[in-house]
């Protein structure tokens, strides 16, 4: 397996949804993501990608198995502790961006720190840093409706960065973007990766996944293949 310091570790994770018969969305997934990795999780719909995202993002608990993020075992935490884990360990990027329309880009990014208890001045300062990092320092006072789709997704990425998380989880981040801006967004992820960020991108797009240094292929809730592409690494 990969060398380096583990940021995310799943061991034999099972997620079962009750029903007749019960649906086993994740069927014994074990995986390890080291600090600074850029990983694509790829698979057709129904393969368990979204469930994996929810479990890794501590939005949902596994039925069995162990999930460790940044050295913390999170599979058995209370709702309050899970919320705290999300506020500090994880940065989410969604396909639909989920930006608050009534807020400026800066305030949207600052909401990434809302539940860490940071004060307003610190939040805005760090939000400005994060926006600068994604190349939107000149757009801080714009509302989401005044930004292009690519810019909106950059704001969302800045929001995911602002709490300096252990891991950034991106769910189909280019799904709502045209191929050109999608490409630019992927370039941004690669930049962040080059700076040392740990990023997991979930996508159904095999071509897109193929450009990433590591691809984990999911099918029917199991890891089918875990491969590293030399081309992408040496890109």
């Amino acid at each position: 397996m990969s060398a380096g310091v583990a940021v995310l570790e799943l061991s034999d994770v099972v997620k079962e949804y009750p029903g007749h018969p019960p649906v086993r969305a994740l069927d014994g997934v074990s995986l390890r993501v080291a600090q600074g990795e850029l990983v694509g999780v790829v698979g057709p719909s129904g393969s368990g990608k979204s469930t994996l995202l929810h479990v890794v993002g501590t939005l949902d608990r596994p039925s069995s198995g162990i999930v460790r993020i940044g050295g913390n075992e999170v599979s058995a935490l209370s709702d309050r502790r899970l919320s705290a884990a999300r506020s500090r360990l994880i940065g989410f990027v969604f396909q639909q961006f989920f930006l608050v329309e009534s807020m400026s880009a800066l305030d949207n990014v600052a909401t990434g720190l809302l539940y860490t208890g940071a004060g307003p001045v610190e939040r805005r300062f760090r939000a400005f840093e994060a926006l600068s990092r994604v190349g939107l320092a000149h757009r801080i006072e714009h509302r989401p409706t005044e930004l292009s789709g690519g810019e909106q997704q950059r704001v969302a990425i800045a929001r995911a960065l602002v709490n300096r998380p252990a891991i950034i989880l991106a769910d189909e981040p280019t799904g709502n973007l045209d191929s050109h801006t999608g490409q630019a967004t992927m370039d941004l992820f690669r930049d962040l990766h080059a700076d040392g960020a740990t990023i997991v991108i979930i996508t159904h797009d095999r071509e897109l996944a193929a450009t990433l240094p590591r691809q984990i292929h999911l099918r029917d809730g199991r890891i089918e293949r875990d491969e590293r592409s030399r081309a992408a690494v040496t890109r």
Partner: protein
Amino acid sequence: MSATNLAKTQGTEASYEIGVSKVRFAELLRAGLGSLGQRPVRTALSALGVTIGIAAMVAVLGLSESSRADLQAKISNLGTNLLTVQAGSGFGAGDGTLPTDTSTAISRIGPIESVSSVVTLKDAVLRNSEVNAQATGGLQAAAVDLSLLTTLNSSVAKGEWLNKATADFPVVVLGSIAAERLGITEVGSGQQILIGDKWFTVVGILKPFPLAADLDRSALIGMNAAATYLGADLNPSTVYVLTVPAYVDDVRKVLGATANPEHPEEAQVSRPSDALQAQLAADSAFTSLFLGLGAVALLVGGVGIANVMVIGVMERRGEIGLRRALGATRRHIRGQFLLEALALAGLGGLVGVGLGSLVTVAYALSQGWKVVLPLVAIVGGIASALAIGAIAGLYPAVRASQLSPTEALRS
């Protein structure tokens, strides 16, 4: 800037602190208020029910307090210890007068502070001899005891009251309405009026009597003057009795027999303040009714808020999911929506209190009442609006917090 924390490393595992998820109260409040500000029309409409309910309750309480204060002022001004004895009139009820010595007899009853007789005179009151003797303008002449002002707790507006000397001479003191109708606004310039066929000099004008409106329309002269110049019989038609307050009921029982021992049933004894007391009681019955209606409006307002909040929770699933993903706990979500409902109801309550107070002030002023805005109505109005908001917001808030993050994000 580094994109992630450079974590402390222990062996082969990065170590991050989970810590606790916390948010400042001000942020929750801002989130709640912010979403209200985003939909101003909806906010206004959903707060309207509470506004109307609170405004109605505040106005009802304010108006009833103002009107009570006015009545109570009247009552305490008159005192509840004033009794009147009137000669019965009408079929089989005597000739409309009491025996001449009535007031002397009454003053022998122990706990009496003051007694005054009023003898109604049949002579017309006229401005001058040129006026048609039939056009009296509803004014009458009366001979009165000097103690009248003391007994009725009234006083002179202009000039002076009769005294022992002037009561024997042709001088007159006018009631407030009488003065107005005769067109006399000043005294002391030897102004004279006609009573019967005799000229009387006006020496004073009285303030209105709170409980004896008859006297406001009268020209008052001394008993001796009435006998001397008008040849009147001095059988009183009304005797005003001011008792020691604690003995009102005792005095009242014996008053009829004392005033007219031969025909006690012909003397009508009454207490003028009773009418006002009855008005007071009737007012408070209406107050309860209107308060009830206000409470119903408030309740409907609460249902409206609950309704709007439930819809809001459904519409804002994405926002709830995002906040959960950013680290909000169930409690934070619950708190945010509860604060929003409280803010909505509190806003409605505040506007309602303002509106209700405005109505109270405007109406009380138009009625010439003293404006009374009871603190209990203002504080109670806002408190009950908040209580309604808390109750109305509880269910939507709990529902929002129970939404699982994965479900909320699936939109």
